[in-house]
């Protein structure tokens, strides 16, 4: 007798993922897709793809989607959600997209308490354009535009989005998670699912920041990249729940 123990989530299309081997983007896609299916909201969800390695996520999530200009995902999401309040609207954004060019759109969507969910992939680099410095790059981190390592003097410190957004009233749920081992992947799934659950309950702005990886542009093997996200990134970006209005 055959028994299906594991299959690809119905929340993903059959399109081949465009991500590099060992990149955490793929893991997070799976968690988002599974959450939408398990919550029974896939057929009323609208994904907003951003500009970055995840630009093609509109082809991967098995639901309606819009592809946003660089940084504007939260503005599109606001536009959609305001006219379709009964639909589920989420953005999927990188750190360049969200924390640099799109920080205004993101902060104001959060401050208005837009009832949307933001999946924020922090890999401390601009993946898609070939490894330039991101606002989230670590001090000392070598990138193609900080070849001797990022300095505080020249570029400032890595921007801590979750810490910053925790101060915003309109945020209903905010957690920073990681994807470097099964335990943390399971926890990331819980956080993502909870964020969508809160959106279903109209609680306000929800965001899950994922401390992610970019083995290719970090110049590391996938396993080393996972290790680096744990050992170098996590101390700068500590994991945990930064805001949970459900618990208040």
């Amino acid at each position: 007798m055959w028994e299906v123990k594991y299959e690809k989530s119905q929340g993903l299309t059959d399109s081949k993922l465009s991500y590099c081997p060992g990149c955490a983007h793929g893991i997070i896609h799976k968690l988002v897709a599974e959450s939408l299916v398990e919550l029974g909201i896939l057929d009323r969800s609208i994904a907003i793809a951003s500009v970055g390695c995840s630009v093609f996520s509109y082809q991967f999530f098995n639901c309606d989607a819009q592809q946003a200009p660089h940084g504007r995902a939260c503005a599109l999401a606001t536009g959609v959600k305001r006219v379709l309040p009964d639909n589920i609207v989420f953005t999927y954004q990188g750190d360049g997209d969200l924390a640099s060019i799109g920080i205004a759109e993101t902060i104001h969507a959060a401050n208005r308490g837009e009832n949307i969910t933001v999946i924020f992939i922090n890999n401390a680099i601009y993946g898609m354009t070939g490894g330039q410095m991101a606002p989230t790059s670590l001090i000392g981190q070598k990138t193609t535009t900080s070849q001797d390592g990022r300095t505080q003097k020249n570029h400032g410190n890595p921007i801590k989005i979750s810490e910053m957004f925790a101060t915003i009233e309109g945020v209903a749920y905010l957690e920073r998670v990681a994807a470097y081992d099964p335990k943390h992947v399971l926890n990331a799934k819980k956080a993502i699912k909870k964020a969508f659950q809160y959106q279903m309950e109209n609680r306000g702005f929800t965001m899950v920041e994922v401390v992610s990886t970019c083995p290719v542009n970090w110049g590391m093997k996938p396993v080393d990249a996972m290790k680096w996200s744990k050992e170098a990134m996590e101390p700068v970006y500590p994991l945990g729940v930064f805001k949970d209005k459900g618990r208040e």
Partner: protein
Amino acid sequence: MAKVLMKGNEAIALAAIKGGVDAFYGYPITPQNEVPEYLSKHLLANGKVFLQAESEVSAINMVYGAAGAGKRVMTSSSSPGIALKQEGISYITAAELPCLIVSVMRGGPGLGSIQPSQGDYYQATRGGGNGDYHLIVFAPESIQETIDTIKESFDIADYYRNPVMVLVDGLIGQMMESVDFDRPKKERFVPEKDWATNGTKNHPGRRNIANSLYLDPAELEQHNIKLHQKYEVIKKNETKFELIDFDNPEYVIVAYGTMARICRSAIEMLKNEGIEVGMIRPITLFPYPEKAFEQIPENVKGILTCELSMGQMLDDVLIANNGKHKVGFFGRAGGMLPDPEEIVGAIKNFNERVVK
């Protein structure tokens, strides 16, 4: 509804409501503030969406989202604000989403002034966004014509899946005229928005996607060709202009919007002096009414382009004229409005005005 006395910007807002607007997203800027102010009151009260965004960049992208979701959506702004919207406009046009953009021009460049101007003709017809795209641009000359245009604009945008821009200047926005909101509008076929991203449960078996990314150049070229073909259809169907006093003109003026209003007075004054002057008044700036120029009699002494700018529509006049007649230019800029007498003088001294 009988005739009412109304300010241009408020009339724009009410006409949009009559046209069925579902949502407005915008950012304050003079001289168009009465548009969002009026809508904030009347849209929210009727269960529709009004949102003051954090910037014009954000506002136009909210428009993208809501237009993609299949709703009738608009924004309005003025020169520096329209400049910021260009990125979003390019994307919306590329993704073939309908919306209404109202542009109430003020003096530029830079922060410029808040006085009326037509310095954004290039911005409206050439755009500042990237790529081969066009807006359908209407340039009404009165509040009544603005109302009639806006009421129809959502039907036009929906039909072509393309943004419509209604381009006026601060004078039309700020002045008051007696207007009628119930004039009949053209019956148009408005297709079902079966492409709207409103959840697959509304269209099982098909995912709807609003997108402008085509990494394969052959595919992107096909997309460009498709858009180009659409613009050709728009040229054929939507080009609009008015010919004024075209019986036997000695000279022909070309002017749009507020400048056309001023030229009407100048034409009357010239007629009283025995000088017959006709006018081509483009109502659509894209598509540009090149056809109108075929009706200019062989024997006219010249064409005078009049603008509230240093000469932008002039380019389209030169293209449409194609070297046939002498073309002159009269312009005021920076928010300065000419008296009709200045245009009378420009016609009388046409030879000093000739540019080509």
